């Protein structure tokens, strides 16, 4: 449409003008930019290769039948589930990996459920009600999203250690030691890490929502709670689902917060990768990493194609 509307008039009267313009406006840069379309495409493709090259190489090496990642021998899945490998273990037969995986899943599931429930209520409050402290809570959530994770991580660690110490010293009990860095501290920290992201997504759903439907429910003598459960919740449910999947991925992949709040008693998959990476590169780490990348990528693809999360987050 734009093409037809803006085609310049090709009349003889207008002929001298372009040559004058050419002198004034077309710089060397303009001449170079004539090739910008090809340049742009080439550049972008090179960048996409850059974005995927190491991950693809990692995945390929995880199927390579050789202990050192030096050259390609032949395809094997032994790093994933072989019973016996000389001088090593496969992912499925390594109890450390299995334990770490179970812990990761437990924390991810629990933190997702808690965070999404809290965030749904919070998003509803922030989107539908006017109250004095609203700006403050908004600000707190955005601060949490944008702040460097290391700062939040170390401060939460200090907080838990001090809280445990304080409870023992002044009250003589500490809720069975749940604030000693371990499973529960990681869980609590992950919930705090997930809430702001979940709120952003659920609020976006609440915004693009025809309020008239809710009002119709109220007009038909639905009590507010009934209206919420029978009308609002089903409509925003895709948003809640998207938020849950995102929280799960964030929690499952999280390293920094987990590292500082886990203490020595528990290990999650990212913590396991961290400790092993520092001892050298092995096909087994490649296999674990491949698994984790495939896991998150699947969730992200589903989220992006079904719910368009990118539009809500950015």
């Amino acid at each position, binding site marked *: 449409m*734009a093409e037809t509307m*803006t085609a310049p008039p090709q009349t003889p009267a207008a002929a001298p003008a372009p040559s004058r313009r050419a002198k004034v406006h077309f710089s060397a*840069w*303009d001449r*170079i930019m*004539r090739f*910008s379309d090809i*340049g*742009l*495409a080439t*550049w*972008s493709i090179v*960048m996409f290769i*850059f*974005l*995927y090259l*190491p991950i693809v*190489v*990692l995945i390929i090496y995880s199927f390579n039948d050789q202990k050192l990642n*030096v050259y390609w021998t032949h395809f094997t899945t032994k790093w994933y589930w072989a019973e016996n490998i000389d001088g090593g273990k496969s992912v499925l037969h390594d109890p450390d990996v299995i334990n770490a995986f179970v812990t990761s899943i437990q924390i991810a599931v629990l933190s997702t459920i808690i965070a999404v429930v*809290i965030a749904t*209520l*919070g998003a509803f*409050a*922030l989107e*539908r009600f006017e109250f004095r*402290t*609203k700006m403050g*809570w908004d600000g*707190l959530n*955005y601060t949490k999203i*944008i702040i*460097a994770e*290391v*700062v*939040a991580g*170390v*401060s939460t660690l*200090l907080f838990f*250690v001090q809280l445990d110490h304080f409870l023992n010293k002044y009250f003589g009990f500490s809720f069975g030691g749940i604030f000693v860095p371990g499973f529960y501290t990681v869980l609590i920290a992950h*919930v*705090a890490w997930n*809430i702001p992201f979940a709120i952003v997504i659920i609020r976006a759903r609440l915004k693009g929502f025809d309020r008239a439907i809710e009002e119709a429910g*109220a*007009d038909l003598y639905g*009590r*507010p709670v009934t209206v919420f459960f029978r009308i609002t919740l089903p409509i925003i449910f895709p948003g809640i689902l998207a938020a849950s999947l995102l929280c799960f991925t964030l929690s499952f*992949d*999280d*390293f920094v917060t987990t590292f500082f709040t886990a203490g020595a008693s528990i290990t999650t998959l*990212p913590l396991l990768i961290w400790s092993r990476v520092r001892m050298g*590169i092995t096909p087994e780490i490649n296999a674990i*990493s491949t698994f984790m*990348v495939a896991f998150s990528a699947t969730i*992200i*693809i589903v989220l*992006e*194609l079904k719910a368009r999360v*990118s539009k809500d987050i*950015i």
Partner: protein
Amino acid sequence: MAEVATVRAKATGVQRVKLGRWGGPVLVAPMAFWMLAFFLVPLILILVYSFGYQGVYDKNVNLTFQTVISTEKIAYSVQSFHWYREIVTNPIYWKAFWRTAIMVFGNTAGCLLLGFPMAYFISRKTGRRKTLFLLMVMIPFWTSFLIRTYSWSTVLSDQGLLNSFLEKLGLVSASSPLHLWPSSTAVWVALIYDYLPFMVLPLFVSIEKIDRSLLEASKDLGAGKWTTFRRVTLPLSLPGIMAGSLLVAIPTTGEFVIPAIAGGDKVVVWGWLIYTNFTRPGMWPLGAALSNILLLIMIIVVALYVRSVGTEQF
């Protein structure tokens, strides 16, 4: 309209009115509690404890603002500003500070230069292609930094892809490969690699919003491609540039995973100092002080950003 509202209020009864006044604060309460208790309070606590001291075998930071004379604790005996004085007077921290500053600016500029053409390219695609390219940026956006950083080892290590490629070309010999992993070069590569999607997504959103007819208008008025880019596209994508820069720069200030893995703990930056002090007994208060300085800088940057751009871009 007011009449309708009154009628509706009467019809639905008192509960609706009550919910209107108390609903917001009640619904926001769980979120508020969680974010206050496990995010804001720890931040305040870490501020306080950076003025304290900690015994080597003592997990708890003690708050004493007097000189501790005991010889055993003399190394860690402190008054209020001791740790800050240590940071300001010791050149190690200044070096780390400037290295971090260079890292932040370099990473932001690098991501902007590499990412802008990419974002522009994606924004000009339509339909399924656009979804595909967007998805290809989204997947790394949400994938674990730890794994994405580690994946470069398969390319850059002594026996990695790059070295075996250079060997084939005869540029290096197998006995003396390029030692790129771990190195500061690897840190730069991994930094830009990890943060690139954080720049591309906001850029894409703001470039996509640009009205194409403005570009047509610029062309009709005789401007070349470069002039159009400089005077139309670039100013209009400024919000995206600002948002992307913030999303890259702020987390980079506290980055420690990349310097630790890709730099082999040899690249001493601010985030790495925080991390390493929190893994050493007795050094938590110093880590707390380092973390507070970082937090202060981040708050200043974000405040400046909000003042100049507003909060709309989040």
